[in-house]
């Protein structure tokens, strides 16, 4: 039977169009309880433990070169941490590339302290009692931008190109399920199960991609950064695995970060 014969047969049976489901999450007891819990926890966010740990790691002489990270330039000059996180990703003349916060921290760990990128990239995400050093450090760095406006720069041509590349990757449909980032994060008012999905292509919703990260994740009691979040998105998209601290991740963080400009960052957050 051709498609048209089939559709005509269906039309003859006069089926009704599906009704739209309600768009906001229903009073889901699990979500409600978590939001109450989050309100209590945000007063004393466990992320603060990693802020302290990260500050220690920043200031302590470590690695083969026995140096601290206090000369690390996060974009505002060597050692300037305050306000740096909300201005990343940005272009760095010393490497001729745009880098995001965690990637830049790892760059400093490699160049200033002599650590190996390959060793760091072998186990870059938290699990159980293990928190990789870059995650603690990025938590500290992010906390130093608390209550500041997101201001990811677009003054250098490479910063603008990186935003464009991020936008193109964001919309790239591939894999066995034909997913792109935009499949879930490119429309208004959608949710997956009871998890609301902000539309990151829009200025008013994109801040949800920035605010709250790095975040203490209740599931597993671990500290996670945006590098982890991007990785796990691609897993659920049924893609192969993105390289840790790669150009693709920087480009996506640039796209979503710039889209979030102007909103106030509240520091490391709490996640479900």
């Amino acid at each position: 039977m051709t498609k048209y014969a089939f559709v005509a047969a269906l039309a003859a049976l006069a089926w009704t169009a599906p009704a739209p489901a309600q768009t906001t999450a229903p009073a889901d007891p699990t979500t409600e309880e978590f939001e109450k819990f989050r309100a209590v926890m945000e007063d004393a966010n466990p992320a603060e433990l990693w802020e302290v740990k990260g500050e220690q790691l920043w200031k302590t002489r470590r690695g083969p070169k026995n140096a601290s990270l206090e000369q690390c330039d996060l974009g505002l000059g060597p050692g300037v941490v305050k306000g740096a996180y909300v201005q990343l990703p940005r272009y760095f003349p010393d490497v001729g590339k745009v880098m995001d916060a965690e990637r830049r921290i790892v760059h400093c760990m490699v160049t200033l302290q002599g650590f190996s990128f390959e060793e760091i990239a072998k186990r870059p995400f938290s699990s159980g009692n293990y928190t990789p050093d870059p995650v603690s450090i990025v938590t500290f760095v992010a906390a130093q931008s608390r209550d500041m406006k997101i201001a990811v720069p677009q003054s250098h041509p490479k910063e603008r190109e990186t935003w464009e590349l991020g936008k193109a990757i964001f919309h790239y449909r591939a894999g066995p399920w034909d997913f792109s980032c935009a499949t879930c994060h490119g429309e208004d008012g959608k949710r997956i199960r009871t998890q609301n999905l902000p539309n990151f292509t829009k200025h008013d919703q994109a801040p949800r991609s920035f605010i709250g990260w790095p975040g203490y994740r209740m599931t597993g009691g671990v500290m996670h950064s945006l590098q982890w979040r991007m990785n796990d998105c691609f897993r659920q998209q049924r893609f192969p695995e993105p390289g840790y601290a790669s150009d693709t991740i920087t480009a996506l963080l640039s796209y979503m970060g710039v889209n979030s400009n102007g909103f106030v960052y509240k520091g490391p957050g709490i996640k479900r």
Partner: protein
Amino acid sequence: MKTKWIATGVAAAVLAGCAAMKDEAAYRREAAEAVKRDFHARGIATMDRLNQDELQRVCTEYNNNPPPALAKKIEDAQFETIKLPADRKFMGDWKVGARLAASGVGMTWSDKPGAAGGSCYNCHQLSPQQTSFGTMGPSLTGFGKKRGFSTENQQYAYMRIYNSKAFTACSSMPRFGHSGTLTEQQIKDLTAYLMDPNSPVNK
């Protein structure tokens, strides 16, 4: 005459900037190159997954809104991929279908080969009792009841699950049969979940 030189300099810089600006097609090509360079295979998620097929390429190019003639061409081509059961029986066990609909496993790099679920509740409302449902797709509550419990409607449900893009070219819904995510029997079980009068979906 300093202002004249400044103006010329600015004009030259603007022109150079414009010449350096790429169009969207160039960024799409760069995106394809970037992901191939930056990703690596893991578990069952191999690198060939990043090669776009024609549908993915077109839907990306048109931001999921291709011109009607092109959409129809895509839908016709997708229709041809649908393999109906040889016995032309579309209904399996709705109880198995219910488990498949609730399961979000399958096809990721952390899944074992052969692990399979429909992830239906991720995107759709189904049984009225289940409040943990997504809204990426329309509600399917009362699917069979609303349409009538005919074999034509069973076939329609089967085909939608097998390859939804045969009906909507750039649909967000994965092509569960065509991609090899679900077997014929699993699609029959899900069809029963939608179409069996005894299924909670139709209560």
